[in-house]
């Protein structure tokens, strides 16, 4: 199995060959199933606004597990991490900034 060693001038050398043990995959799979159960369970309770927070939090955790372990980003270079992060940051731009329009339509700094 190849080791994970740092590179000399690692500017653009991407992922080192890293073979992941099937046991780890099964472990992650178990975690994902547990989280799926949790999200269904949490939906059965009334946490008010926090239902949404919990649901998204669990979904994000699951996504992170898939990305880090099934998709090997845990062992990938900084560049891949940057690409993944950029995708989500841009998604954030789209959703949050568009939302800011809808959230602030009702504001009124001027009476009348």
């Amino acid at each position, binding site marked *: 199995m190849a080791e994970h060693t740092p590179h000399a001038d690692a*500017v653009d050398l991407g992922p080192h060959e890293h073979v992941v043990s099937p046991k780890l995959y099964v472990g992650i799979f178990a975690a994902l199933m547990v989280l799926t159960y949790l999200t269904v369970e949490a939906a059965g309770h009334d946490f008010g606004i926090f239902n949404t927070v919990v649901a998204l939090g669990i979904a994000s955790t699951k996504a992170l597990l898939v990305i880090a372990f099934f998709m090997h980003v845990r062992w990938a270079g900084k560049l891949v991490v940057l690409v993944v992060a950029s995708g989500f940051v841009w998604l954030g731009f789209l959703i949050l*900034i568009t939302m800011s329009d809808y959230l*602030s339509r009702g504001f009124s700094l001027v009476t009348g």
Partner: protein
Amino acid sequence: MPTQPITSETMPKEHYLNADYGIRSWLLTIDHKRIALLYLLSVTVAFALGGAYAVLVRLELLTPAGDFFTAENYNKMFTAHGVIMVFFFMIPAIPATLGNFLLPMMIGAKDLAFPRINLLSWYLYVVGFLVTLGALFVGGLDTGWTFYTPYSTAFANSNVVAAGVGIFISGFSSILTGFNFIVTIHKMRAPGMTWFRMPLFVWAHYATSLIQILGTPVVAVTILMVAAERLFKFGFFDPTRGGDPILFQHLFWFYSHPAVYIMILPAMGVISELVTCFSRKRVFGYDFIAMSSLAIAVLSFLVWAHHMFVSGMSVYAAMIFSALSFLVAIPSAIKVFNWTATLFRGSVSWQTPMLYAMGFIGLFLIGGLTGLFLASVGLDIHVTDTYFIVAHFHYVMVGGTIMAYLGGLHFWWPKMTGRLYPEWWARVSAVLVFVGFNTTFLPQFILGYLGMPRRYYAYPEEFQVLNVMSTAGASILGVGFLLPIFYLAWSMRYGRISSANPWPATGLEWQTPSPPPTENFPRTPVVDEEAYDYTRPPKEIALV
């Protein structure tokens, strides 16, 4: 320093143009240089068609009454002009022609990272173009290139879905080109070609590719939503079904604003190359120009709602977008200052590419500054949907991008074809373009400010003089654009033979024969000096 390009007695014996013959060798090529020429042909056709529609629009506007077309047909004319020019000329023009041709060579690579996907990009472009043309010719599209809802989803009787499908397909052409460039720049640079030794043209295309990847999919899915609304009666943007038309505008402009930077960034990359070569001087502030390209790519995604100030969106959000829009002008200004500083104390010569470059700097300045007027919410409300806007974006798109495109095309023509274009004809064309352009669009600033609305086929009598002037300018501009098509084609057969590096210019692409061999470099070059070193004579490539 020669003011005449260096000629040669003979062409190289074997190069990418004669490496293989027959239509199959072109239609099934994976050589990035041949694909670039395929694109050159296609975008020229698109430009001619888009230009023809512009002619029709300007003919109608010679007279105050709507007497040439019906109102609905006039809508179809300006829509066709916009759709063709934006999606099938402006977006691909520099990246898919000059970018495709030069990018691998500038970094010392044999080809792009994914040559077959590059060819696929071209086919997607062609198919998208044909589908869209079908929609435009048969029945027509009258929504404006911006497809605003609910008109486009609930009321238009025109071929919205068909045109949308065509644009969707060509969008993937753009995405794949961007994706190819990003991977190529990261992974295929020659030994010694560090990021900060790369030509600024490459930096510009990297930033452009970021925008293509992150922005285009949003408009793609928005087109699907519009199609779903028309075909299946989903109600995303229809108020009668609970939807919000302004949401369409958010989704549309999230891409379409960064899209204009897809159009201008490669042009700025070209200008960096031209200014440095024709001042015989290292570009001033290389790091700042490189970083400003990235800054533009990021900031361009944060300003889109300045297209929506009058839409009914929140005024408070509008103010934030206004402030951000002022911010995005800063990196562009940095570039203009640095180009000017490059010229200072340089040894300036006035070949055609430099004429276009100087034209770019002046006209982009006007276009960019008027953009600042529009970033101010108060002023924008007054001039939005008037000819002021039309003038603004034509100044940056035509006075900016198209002039840079023509400048770049002339500059690298010897590299691409092994021939020199006829300098006198080229200079005449450049002057005609400059004069014609300003005569066409300067009056439009005034018209817009006085209140003439855009997308109207009739206007008050008092605006006729300026409109006639604008149409007259368009005729001159048309001649200026047509001439290169003829003399460039002529030069491919009869032009003087160019040396490998006629100007001469720095850069790896000039250190290989003109035209280059299929594999670009006989052996992989090794880079050991900074970009744009004009203090020394151009060296032979150091071979591995």
